[in-house]
């Protein structure tokens, strides 16, 4: 297989069934050397299962896995050149941090000086030198996760696998460690595959995000592309907080071009970049709250009037909720321009920023 040689991890036609349940379905994924890939999806989408398959902790039903050009489908986890970081840290509770870090090396029979050297290096990178003689029980959550990363680090592996490593931490620590993992990736330049259900982690860390659902990769792209041009309604709704607004309506062929219509609302789609040739029919119109502007004057070729229902101040900005064609619709505005409840406002946006989905299939139009 030639394609496998220039990639770090290559997954080909991978399927996994537990009895009658299909968890992964003919999945293909190529990860470039040094790339940071995030597997993102709701719980039960198969992202952790995929990671366990790459790690060799689960036997695959079909397909094969290459790491560094070597077919590792039947290899033991330790022979795959991977290091793994788990959500619950999975530190050996009866061992000190140092013993935790060195366990893999001791099992492999690495010489003592070499072990000491590698631990010193890992401890320096992760700034855990003062903790080396402590037991995991005496560490905080953030420290434990650092040790868990260190355990992968000392083994000098090609590929790092992260299984929701930050999910057990509080919000502040999560943000800190997120930055540290990004720095670590810059420093080490290793291939990293990172599983999370947190879209912020995915957006901030990834070179490319693979959004998964039902054991299938829905979209594999750079974060910005996924954010701006989601391929289907699931991806559009899963990424973004607050979530993208969806309005069900129809696509119509008006005299001047295509337009979206829902009840009395008509939006000409002048600058919209169609993904495939449009045809009249039921569609779902989606636009992100921050791409809509409120009372911004007459810059747009249309105007939509609405009444403010609820205002949610969030500090840096404010979320304004209103009804559009009897469907909930949110707009993100700066705190200074917050309207009052029940105030009449007009909405405007650039149709280029919008996304249109086939209502029946959910795919992007």
């Amino acid at each position: 297989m030639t394609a496998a040689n220039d990639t770090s991890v290559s997954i080909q036609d991978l399927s996994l069934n537990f009895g009658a349940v299909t968890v992964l379905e003919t999945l293909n994924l190529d990860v470039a050397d040094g790339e940071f890939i995030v597997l993102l999806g709701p719980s039960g989408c198969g992202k952790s299962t995929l990671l366990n398959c790459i790690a060799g902790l689960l036997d695959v039903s079909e397909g094969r896995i290459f790491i560094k050009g070597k077919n590792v489908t039947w290899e033991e986890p330790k022979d795959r050149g991977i290091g793994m970081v788990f959500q619950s840290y999975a530190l050996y509770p009866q061992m000190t941090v140092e013993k935790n870090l060195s366990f893999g090396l001791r099992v492999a029979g690495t010489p003592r000086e070499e072990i000491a050297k590698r631990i010193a290096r890992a401890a320096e990178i992760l700034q855990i030198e003062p903790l080396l003689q402590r037991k995991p029980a005496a560490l905080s959550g953030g420290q434990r996760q650092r040790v868990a990363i260190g355990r992968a680090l000392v083994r000098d592996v090609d590929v790092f696998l992260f299984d929701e490593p930050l999910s057990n931490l509080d919000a502040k620590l999560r943000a800190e460690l997120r930055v540290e993992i990004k720095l670590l990736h810059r420093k080490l330049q290793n291939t990293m595959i990172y599983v999370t259900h947190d879209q912020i982690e995915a957006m901030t860390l990834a070179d490319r995000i693979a959004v998964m659902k039902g054991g299938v990769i829905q979209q594999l792209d750079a974060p910005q592309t996924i954010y701006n041009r989601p391929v289907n309604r699931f991806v559009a709704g899963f990424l973004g907080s607050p979530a993208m607004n969806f309005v069900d309506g129809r696509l119509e062929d008006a005299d001047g071009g295509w337009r979206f219509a829902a009840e009395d609302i008509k939006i000409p789609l002048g600058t919209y970049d169609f993904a495939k040739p449009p045809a009249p029919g039921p569609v779902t119109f989606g636009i992100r709250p921050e791409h809509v502007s409120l009372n911004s004057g007459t810059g747009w070729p249309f105007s939509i009037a609405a009444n403010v229902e609820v205002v949610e101040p969030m500090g840096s900005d404010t979320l304004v909720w209103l009804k559009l064609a009897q469907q909930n619709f949110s707009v993100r505005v700066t705190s200074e321009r917050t309207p009052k409840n029940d105030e009449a406002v007009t909405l405007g946006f650039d149709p280029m920023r919008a996304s249109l989905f086939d209502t029946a299939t959910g795919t992007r139009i």
Partner: protein
Amino acid sequence: MSIADITAQASTAAGARQDIAGPYGPKPRRVISRRNVFLYGTLFVMAVYYLLPLYVMVVTSLKGMPEIRLGNIFSPPLEITFEPWVKAWSTACTGLNCDGLSRGFWNSVRITVPSVLLSIAIASVNGYALANWRFKGADTFFIILIVGAFIPYQVMIYPIVIILREIGLYGSLSGLVIVHSIFGMPILTLLFRNYFASMPEELFRAARVDGAGFWGIFLRIMLPMSLPIFVVAIILQVTGIWNDFLFGVVYTRPDTYPMTVQLNNIVNSVQGVKEYNVNMAATILTGLVPLIVYFISGKLFVRGIAAGAVKG
């Protein structure tokens, strides 16, 4: 705001509180409430119920026979004598041997120690394999084991006699050790399987990624974390095997009778005078080992659980 202001405010707040009428702070609880009387009353009655026989045994074992014949079983001994204890241990006659329970004691030790070690060693590996390495047919194997736990022992006595006779171990201590180890297997395997299954699976996975194999993970990761369950298993096995009478009487010969069988022979002898004081002393001596195990390991048990607790 200066510190002085804050303290001034705090004191006025505290002063104001005293003026507040109605409930404030922890709810007062009466020591003698209906709930407490009921709770401690029940506990006291139950404790007396269980301790009274022990009291009678201890008191009787310290009396001489003339005093026992007076019939006041609850009265403390007028004259404390340890003669019955000595006799029970070293000179009481069982069958042909007149060297007391000491022979049975050492026989029981020689039966219990290897049986406990062997059965726990095998069952812990069984449980570990069943919980962590889901090998082919593991479920079937487990069901068979569990069914084994529900078959009454009596059904298997005769077949086992034949098996032991055929392999030449009938009447020997090692034969009995094997029987005890096998019969401890279902419940111990279940115990260990459930314990290992309750350990975080990610720990097992991490060890596999680190390259440890079947025995490496068992000996270096799982064993150090399983002190509590080993203590539980030891309590179960030591008391179970030490107290066993049925297998002891069936599978051994008079020379190799365990302590329980000897005790029975002393207490149930139909000839001569019933020496109640010797019987009581012998019974207490026989029951002492499980009692000591409970007292020592009970503490260890709690400590083991506390030491093994690492929160995620």
